[in-house]
């Protein structure tokens, strides 16, 4: 190989290696005729292994302000989801008969809604349902999409064409509408939401995974595996899968954001998380009619909650993508 250094703002190959690679012990003993003599001092660097790459990636993430901000917001909502009932200043479902449609005040920081319920408490407690459903749906979608994408990308041919056409048919309509149709048909409940969103997202994720698999399957390590009589399952899950985890992780975070968005939309339409459980989408929908009367706080705060959560997850997704691509 020649020392061809790229000119376009990328550091030279010698410059982009991790500090670990630079330790002389890891450079080429191939240059040695017989047994390489490792010079002292470098030996310590050798203890680090595969784990180092992961640690290095994590370190890069933790240095990214976008990731830290996203993580902080997400962490806040996770805390709300777990301990919402304890943190909330009022009971989110019990209304006050004296204080309805109260604007934000010292007693009710986010005001109260038309039934006299504390908007702040409802916003805090509302994190649980949406986070749980979105997370489970995305996990389901990722598992499904990964398997589907692996099978398509690995086998290609008729299997790929067949599955590909089905996916295209389902995704010809906007995702929210597809999910909406299924949820309406199956009557809305959390498990139905999870399964429906998981299925639809699985189809979307499978396309990304398939593309990543296509790039891998042409590489020589796959040929090497074939030449030692490995089965298809081994090649797909042991050889290929670890190499496409990067795009899958990115896809997972991106989809998590979309899942929250989708669930909030469905709730707004009345087919998401069902009352009386506090839910941001449903609350916005219920409060929207009073917007004209000037009761803006009833809509604004749950809307901000949705926005902050989606933005947080997108910040995390972007940072992860940046690290994975690097």
């Amino acid at each position, binding site marked *: 190989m020649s020392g061809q250094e790229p000119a376009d703002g990328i550091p030279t190959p010698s410059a982009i290696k991790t500090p670990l690679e630079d330790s002389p012990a890891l450079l080429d003993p191939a*240059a040695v005729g017989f047994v390489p003599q490792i010079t002292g001092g470098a030996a310590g660097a050798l203890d680090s292994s595969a784990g180092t790459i992961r640690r290095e990636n994590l370190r890069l993430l933790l240095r990214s302000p976008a990731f830290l901000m996203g993580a902080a917001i997400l962490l806040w909502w996770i805390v709300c989801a777990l301990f919402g009932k304890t943190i909330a200043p009022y009971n989110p479902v019990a209304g006050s008969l004296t204080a309805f449609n109260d604007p934000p005040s010292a007693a009710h920081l986010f005001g109260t809604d038309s039934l006299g319920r504390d908007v702040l408490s409802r916003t805090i407690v509302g994190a649980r349902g949406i986070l749980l459903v979105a997370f489970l749906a995305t996990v389901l979608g990722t598992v499904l999409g990964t398997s589907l994408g692996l099978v398509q990308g690995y086998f290609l041919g008729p299997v790929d064409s067949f599955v590909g056409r089905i996916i295209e048919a389902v995704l010809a309509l906007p995702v929210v509408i597809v999910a909406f149709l299924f949820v309406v048909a199956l009557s809305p409940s959390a498990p139905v939401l999870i399964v429906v969103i998981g299925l639809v997202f699985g189809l979307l994720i499978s396309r990304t995974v398939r593309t990543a698999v296509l790039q891998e399957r042409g590489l020589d390590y796959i040929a090497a595996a074939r*030449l*030692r009589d490995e089965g298809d399952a081994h090649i797909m899950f042991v050889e290929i899968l670890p190499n496409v985890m990067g795009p899958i992780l990115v896809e997972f975070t991106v989809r998590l954001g979309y899942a929250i968005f989708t669930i909030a939309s469905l709730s707004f339409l009345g087919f998401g998380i069902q009352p009386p459980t506090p839910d941001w989408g449903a609350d916005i929908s219920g409060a929207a009619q009073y917007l004209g009367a000037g009761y803006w706080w009833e809509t604004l705060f749950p809307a901000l909650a949705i926005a902050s959560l989606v933005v947080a997850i997108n910040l995390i997704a972007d940072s992860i993508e940046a690290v994975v691509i690097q």
Partner: protein
Amino acid sequence: MTARTSAQAAPRQLTDGPVVDAAHVDVTYTVRGADRLTVKDVSFQIGPQESFGLVGESGCGKSTMALAIVRYLARNGRVSKGSITVAGQDVQALGTHALRELRARTISMVYQEPGRALNPSIRVGRQVAEVFEIAGLSKSEAAGRAEESLRTVQINDPGRVLQAYPHQLSGGMLQRVIIAMALARQPALLILDEPTTALDATVEAEILELVSALRQEFHTAVLFISHNLAVIAKMCDRVGVMYAGELVEQGLALQVFEEPRHPYTVGLLRCIPRRGQRKDHGRLDTIPGFLPAPGTVPVGCIFTQRCAIAQERCEREAPPMYPVGGDRISRCHYHERAPELPRATPEDVRLPAPDEASAPVISLRGVSKTFTAGKEPVHALTGIDLDLHAGETLGLVGESGSGKTTLARVLLGLSAADDGSALEMSGTKLAPLAPKRSRDQLRAMQIIFQNPDSALNRRHSVRAIISRPLTKLAGLSGKQREASLEELVASVRMQQRQLGLRPAQLSGGLKQRVAIARAFAGDPRVLVCDEPTSALDVSVQAAILNLLAELQGSKRVTYLFISHDLGVVRYLSDRIAVLYLGRLQEYGEAEAVFTGPHHPYTEALLSAVPSLDGTRERIALTGEIPSPAHPPSGCVFHTRCPRRLASGVCESTEPPLAEVEPGHFMRCHIPPDELRQLQNVEGQ
């Protein structure tokens, strides 16, 4: 020569001073906040019309130096000390406009990958004409000049080339176009950064000749960067040898390569198989030790750790540039002793002779492979008959597109041979595809791929990569597997503690060792080596070739060795097969094939290889390798054959693969005696 306009014909105003004057240049990259000195105290001058070569292994800073000259270092890089003057202008001090002018008029650069230097979605003609438009010509004038400029780089049908998109042209053709563009403004300096590394030897020879001719014609100074010592020797008046960011030796190219005065240059030259050296003559020498970590600032000489003649003084005191006669410079305290550098590897080697009397391990009869591109059949291989004997190395040579890799894949069962092809291993028929072969058959035949980055799973540890075939092919487990693993790792000269690493943490040579260990895990009888050293540096290549030769001696394995580097093939091979357009053209004992009589194609291949041992007269091949979808009639080589017979028999009839000497087969209408006479065999 073609007619040119007056502007082009007029010799450029030559300044008296050097075109490039680099004085004590340091280049520093800032990586994650830390400074890393990449080029250290490099000084050289390139005079008007002179060609200067920078040679060295990857990471030695040669390309960085070139980028510093055009001030095009990556954003995190800068010239931290010293000065670079080009045509009298201090490059560092230039303003934006002046810098543009410098790049536009004074310096041109040609890179390694011609395919990446042009915009793939714009026709070549537009891109060439643009260079002239920037110079202020009108659109129609520029188009005319574009065509003319392609003629100067010996493109016969510029009309077709100008109309084409880059992907429709071959690498050699693209490189010509790029050279035409680079010379369009008659630059004072042409920088060529590994311009032929991505090309076939035959094309490389053409491009190099073209550059030499144009240099005379355009009076351009050339900075030629290459890892290939022979190419530099052929192309350059003077040469600088770089090592770990330092220029360790400088002088007239002939002198430097004849009598190197720095231990690194001496070592580097010994790594290359030369003068017909073969594996049974002795091992290649290597350079022991490792390249220092980038950015290391040693107290003493940078090469001390790897130098066999280093004294205590070398560790303390950085050597200055010692003048060693003429304008030669060596950065070695003991430069007068450099030529006596002791060998790093013992020379003698005992290799068992291949067992040719026995039945062949692999026997191929009438093996063909047809791909379908669109609806057209593409004949990648046609009627290959080959035998591989136990313990021998069969070298497979030919230009890219000749079917070498296809033959390897067919043999391994990675792609199925056409019906009617017969593949046998020790008398047993082999199924066309690997999954249909028995585990023993799979185990008996493995491969070392060209690119270890692709061949090793990035997410698996070295331990996992080597253990898996031990489990799968050798059927080992537990302690036994652990023992075999240790043995394998030791046999490829790796260390136990490297087992936990991932491929990305290893250097190129180490990765290839992992791939070799994996290939040997199942104790194969036949190993296909598909260009196993072409991605490696010279010193690493030598170590890998030694290793392969050694393993063959100890394990009695048969190699099918594919390489475009004839020196390497000659070093390792017992027999050679020459492929052209998927057909076997010549086949015989390595020495017989190399000494001749040669098939005209082999002759051309041999003559195209730049050599450190003096230049041969090159047999030029006209045109490009034809498409295998439409192979020429008769002898497939007749379209490019310099010795085509006037009788027309070459065009009409395909010659048979005839035995011209015992064990030496050739597919040519010209009788061997006549060929011998024509080629005036001297026995190189």
